[in-house]
């Protein structure tokens, strides 16, 4: 590719940056960061061959804490940016990090179409069912009776069902993980990154500050009792009827990833501008 020397990275610590995370002590995102670095080490990818793209929110701080290339982008727009990057640089491994507010609300429409396009990248949503960074407002996955100052008595709204929506929209790999099991989560991330097309991994990641009740998730999660299916209808039925704490790879599809032909790479900016001349 170039004269840049490939760095050998074999240990999870090789993928961590010098920036100290500032999440709240007890936050699930610390474990997610650990899972990222362990997954990258298992894959043996050089840090400069990985790009971690994010939007806005607590979860979206993660690119700064890795030693890979990173882009901390605009709220909800990480998938659009990552898709553009991947189609122009298919040689790179692209991992997108988001949260339930950033990914399902502000970036909800991008979520649908990223699944539909099926670009070969991995979309990780750290779901804590609350807007943590802006201090506890309900998100699309918040339970209807979660009582907040903004929504006294709860929103009364049914939560969004991201895994089923991902399936219905065409995601090629769907999994649910729990932050408190970083090795198991790293294993799921390895599979997600290896699987062609859009891989969607929802990681249940407790917000211990605004949802202290989520510390109990540790005792609620359990391994999925069945192996992943390649039938989206079967996967959707299973996910719709599970208890929301079923951990594992739930769907592996066989759709061909979207990768447009990039044509002549030697076109310069002046050539492009000609097409827009009035």
């Amino acid at each position, binding site marked *: 590719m170039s004269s840049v020397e490939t760095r050998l990275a074999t240990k999870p610590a090789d993928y961590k940056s010098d920036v100290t*995370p500032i999440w709240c002590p*007890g936050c699930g995102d610390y474990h997610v960061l650990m899972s990222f670095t362990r997954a990258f080490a298992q894959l043996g990818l050089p840090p400069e061959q990985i790009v971690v793209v994010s939007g806005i929110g607590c979860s979206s701080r993660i690119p700064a804490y890795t030693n890979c290339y990173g882009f901390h982008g605009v709220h909800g727009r990480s998938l659009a940016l990552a898709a553009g990057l991947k189609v122009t640089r298919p040689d790179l491994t692209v991992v997108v990090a988001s949260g339930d507010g950033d990914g399902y609300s502000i970036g909800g429409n991008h979520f649908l179409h990223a699944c539909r396009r099926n670009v070969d990248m991995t979309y990780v949503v750290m779901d804590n069912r609350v807007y943590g960074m*802006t201090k506890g407002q309900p998100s699309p996955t918040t339970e209807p009776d979660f009582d907040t*100052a903004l929504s006294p008595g709860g929103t009364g709204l049914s939560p969004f069902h991201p895994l089923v929506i991902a399936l219905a929209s065409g995601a090629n790999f769907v999994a649910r993980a729990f932050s*408190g099991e970083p090795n198991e989560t790293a294993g799921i991330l390895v599979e997600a990154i290896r699987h062609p097309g859009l891989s969607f991994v929802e990681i249940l990641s407790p917000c211990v500050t605004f949802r202290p009740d989520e*510390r109990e998730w540790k005792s609620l*999660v359990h391994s999925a009792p069945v192996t992943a299916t390649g039938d989206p209808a079967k996967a959707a039925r299973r996910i719709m009827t599970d208890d929301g704490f079923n951990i594992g790879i739930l769907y592996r599809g066989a759709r061909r990833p979207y990768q447009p032909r990039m044509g002549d790479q030697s076109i310069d900016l002046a050539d492009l501008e000609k097409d827009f001349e009035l």
Partner: protein
Amino acid sequence: MSKTPSERPITSITDLLALAYQIEADAVQRYTELAEQMETHNNQELVTVFRDLAKAEGIHAEEIRKMAGDIDLAAQAQRLARWKKGGSPEEADLGAAHYLMTPWHALQLALTGEKQALAFFTSILDSANDAKIKERAAEFVEEEAEHVNLVHRLLRKYPKPSDAWAEDDDPPAPQG
């Protein structure tokens, strides 16, 4: 979901030393991370406690590294250590951290880690067929048992805090 030992059976002294080294190194990393979290959240007493715990585990790691001579234990452990679930035995649970936690809480994390390490080496002692592995595993069992006792002794200095330990006069208030 509980912590489970390595998937692969231990077949040599080098493997045993490598895993023992990795367990201590993982503990150093985790305590250092907790110290950094406490530093960020200005819980200075806990910064000291976690740094001391990291230092103690680092000394153990270094002792094990010396036992192995020229062998690169970290590289060997990288090849071996595959914990199915949970972390390696002495890794403190980051999910149990709290910005107002006290030395008692930190020592509870340490106690859990030491007990898990004791159980890990006891399982090796019980299952190993090789006399040399058994002998070395017995030494580790003895050492970890002493660490459990040490944490119990330290806990006498730090009694359990009142139930109000997490009360904050200026808590992170949810906004509407």
